[in-house]
């Protein structure tokens, strides 16, 4: 959605003038490329523990950065003083960084071409969460917790919301001038049930994903309160449920869980910076190397995965990325085969992909843009395959709902995930919960074991606020849409046994 930003607090800030001063100084000092990014970031975290407010901490951060290429080397600097002199000084510092570190650079930086834009992008948000009275937000969480504790089946509960608004201005020496505003919200709840006779405890949450929306997401869209209402009964049942017998099972995985498996095993493995080794010292590399492009059978033929920065309410959805590249949608996996990567302008040029697909993002004014994940989503089955159809196709299996623990190796082969709820399936029907479940697999084995894909009726846009990457560390919000899906003969661990 594109229209104008009307927030007077942002519009009163001197970003245009700072950009002019910074870009002029960068050019004067010999930069062949320069961009200026101005960020105003607002955040508000509210946490309610049992029936008490634990914290309510709003914060606002404003700053800017200048990124240059001089003699083929990057230089980046960031500042907080909103004066023209300081902006020019930060540009000079970025050039100094490029000069200082140039002897370490053996590979001149060249960027893929991108048109020049003058535009404004504003994400859709019906109720600006920063205009909702703080007390209303606190009361929302207090009411959630009160209902949990009043059930008599929950001993402790912690709930929270995290609200974020991002306003950015991007200007480049080439002439782009782009303003953007995005809003996103996240909320969750963890209920704790303690067995007083043994001291054992279990936890559960409602599995409500974050979204690129406003406060309306909590009150009218997500069904947060209704989903939370189901937790005490389900948690009580989970406490009494049998511990899973380890072994191989058919799994029906709900989108509230599968989004995270997509994120870790597909999203990260198809980041081209990882493939090229840029993250080898931190987040890791990838098994999906360039020689496998258009060759690797990543998954079953029914597997179609897109990358996009355009889906409505997506956490990674923008008008333009932090290098001024317009948002796009493209295929990453088509009919099970690896066909695409996530790119920024430098990598797109270096690997001859032509144009960047717009995956540069920086999480704060003091951080340099990195290639970060777009919304990476598994397409729903064009046929209307219902959840009951997938469950009905399982003779002996488990239906997994909600994400919890996750871990994957640095080349994105070996992963292990748990969940919030695990329902035993026998002869095509759910027969009750089990507990202590983790599924462990190798990425391509897992996706090639996909034997059923749900239709649109099972589709959900999941996601995370906190995808970590880079040194210095940055976090990025990202969405993953997916239907429920069926996987055959996946290895299930018993986590209680693993601990002994």
């Amino acid at each position: 959605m594109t229209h104008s930003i009307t927030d007077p607090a942002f519009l009163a800030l001197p970003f245009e003038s700072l950009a002019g001063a910074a870009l002029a100084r960068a050019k004067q000092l010999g930069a062949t490329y320069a961009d200026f990014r101005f960020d105003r970031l607002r955040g508000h975290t509210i946490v309610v523990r049992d029936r008490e407010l634990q914290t309510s901490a709003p914060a606002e951060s404003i700053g800017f950065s200048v990124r240059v290429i001089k003699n083929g080397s990057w230089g980046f600097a960031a500042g907080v003083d909103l004066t023209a002199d300081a902006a020019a000084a930060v540009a000079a510092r970025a050039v100094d960084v490029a000069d200082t570190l140039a002897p370490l650079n053996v590979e001149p930086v060249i960027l893929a071409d991108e048109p020049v834009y003058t535009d404004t992008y504003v994400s859709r948000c019906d109720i600006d969460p920063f205009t909702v009275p703080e007390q209303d937000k606190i009361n929302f969480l207090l009411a959630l917790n009160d209902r949990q504790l009043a059930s008599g089946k929950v001993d402790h509960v912690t709930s929270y919301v995290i609200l974020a608004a991002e306003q950015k201005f991007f200007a480049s020496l080439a002439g782009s001038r782009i303003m953007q505003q995005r809003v996103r919200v996240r909320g969750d709840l963890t209920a704790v049930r303690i067995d007083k006779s043994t001291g054992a405890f279990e936890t559960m949450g409602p599995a409500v994903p974050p979204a690129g929306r406003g406060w309306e997401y909590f009150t009218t869209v997500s069904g947060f309160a209704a989903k939370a209402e189901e937790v005490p009964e389900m948690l009580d049942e989970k406490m009494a449920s049998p511990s899973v017998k380890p072994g191989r099972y058919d799994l029906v995985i709900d989108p509230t869980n599968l989004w995270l498996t997509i994120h870790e095993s597909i999203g990260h493995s198809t980041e081209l910076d990882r493939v090229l080794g840029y993250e080898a010292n931190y987040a890791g590399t990838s098994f999906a190397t360039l020689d496998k492009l258009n060759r690797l059978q990543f998954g079953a033929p029914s597997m179609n995965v897109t990358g996009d920065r355009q889906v409505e309410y997506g956490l990674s959805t923008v008008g333009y990325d932090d290098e001024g590249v317009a948002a796009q949608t493209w295929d990453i996996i088509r009919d099970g085969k690896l066909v695409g990567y996530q790119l920024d302008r430098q990598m797109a040029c270096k690997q001859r992909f032509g144009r960047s697909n717009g995956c540069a993002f920086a999480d704060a004014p003091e951080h340099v843009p990195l290639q970060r994940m777009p919304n990476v989503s598994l397409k729903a089955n064009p046929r209307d395959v219902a959840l009951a159809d997938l469950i009905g196709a399982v003779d002996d299996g488990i239906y997994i709902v909600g994400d919890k623990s996750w871990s994957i190796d640095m080349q994105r082969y070996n992963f292990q995930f748990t969940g919030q709820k695990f329902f035993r399936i026998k002869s095509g029907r759910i027969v009750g919960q089990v507990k202590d479940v983790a599924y462990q697999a190798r990425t391509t084995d897992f996706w090639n074991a996909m034997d059923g894909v749900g239709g649109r009726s099972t589709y959900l846009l999941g996601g995370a606020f906190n995808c970590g990457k880079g040194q210095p560390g940055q976090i990025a919000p990202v969405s993953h849409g997916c239907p429920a899906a069926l996987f055959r003969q996946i290895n299930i661990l018993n986590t209680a046994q693993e601990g002994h």
Partner: protein
Amino acid sequence: MPGRVVPSDQYPQHRAGGTLIDFPQIIDRVLGLSRADACIVIGRQNTNANVRWANNTVTTNGATESVALSILSIVGRRIGSATRSYLPPEHLERIVRESEATCEGKPVAPDYMPLLAGEGTPHDWSAPPAATDIRVFDAFAPKLRGVFDRAGRADLQTFGFAEHGASTIWLATSSGLRRRHSDCIGKVDITAKTPDFSRSSWAGAATATFADIDPGALLDTLQQRLSWSERQIELPAGHYEVLLEPSCVSDLALGSYFFMTRRDADEGRSPYSNGTGGTRIGERLFGRVTMYSDPADSQIPVTPFHVGVASDGATSVFDNGLPAVRMDWTRDGVLRALFTPRFWAAKAGVPAVPYVNNLIVAGDGPTMNDMIRRTRRALLVTCFWYIRTVDPQTALQTGLTRDGVFLVENGEVKGSVNNFRWNMSPIAALAQATEIGRTGMALPREHDEFLRAKAPALRIERFNMSSPSQAS
């Protein structure tokens, strides 16, 4: 339309000597403007220089600065806050009023306690803050270029990151408390790989100045480990005796440390709960391991008082300024203390124990080489990665080995082994330590932002390697 540039002489955002904002002056002004019953003001300034490289060439870099002012207003037993980085003088009163206004209608703070009394203004209160910039790498960059050249000649690719940060915190309260802390901390870590990425090794070090960092010595270590990898051995999942490098030990120790919230334990939702409404303080949970924090440690000093803008289960904003001293969390394996803010201490009738931002595992035993020499069969593990909690009841965590697992047999390294996914409680792992090496600086790989750790190598009897990982 965007506004005009604020003339640089209208407010003191920039000043000579590394000062971005005159926090002592702003803090006095905020306290003067405050109409709340009590007020806490926290100023932070950070500067950072960093360089990152891959495939023996630089990739990203930066010389950056950031600031934040937090105003916490207390009206009755309610608390409200505002945090800002943009602080022109004409905005200050508005920010103060905003923090006061957020108290209205709010529930009382469950952790309310009277603010701590002041002990005078520290002598360095108005001294220039710590600062760093790209010049910190003037001596390091040529050495790093030498590493690129050497690695290239050895047909190796290096990937790494060097970072130096300087930060200063000012804390003041309406009760007269004034505390200030400045420090510098940095690190360098390097991964070396063969061109096909089939063999990999990692080493790193923390530093306060970068004057003591020799990337060439790190490359020596990497090359030695890569030479061990020339013979590659496939091993299956199973329980193995392991020799853990200090990096792994610090990650395990931190994994157990971050569970140490007294309130969680008292409420029965922690691995340190005793199951009958109390904690496991006094129980030998950690075998023979002694683990402590010491803000005054000469190598990894940290802020010697609590500072925070939000309360959580482990800390309280009302404890801002609470002195932190050496605290033994475990002694000879016995759990001795858990993080306890003052309000919970008063409720539980126990002493307050602040969280401290460094962690030391004690050890005065043999060197790793000596431990290898007396090993019949074990896996030597360089570092861990992607550690996540699986079960908070037992502190069961899952993670992976990374960039160097080696088979040691009959006192010698025989070759490198495939990586593993492991499932293990860090408490149970530390409890199984049968040999404790010599404590030194440690760079945790998973908890990579935690740069103030010291640990010895450990020998652990049975470590659950749950499945092999193909990653290299």
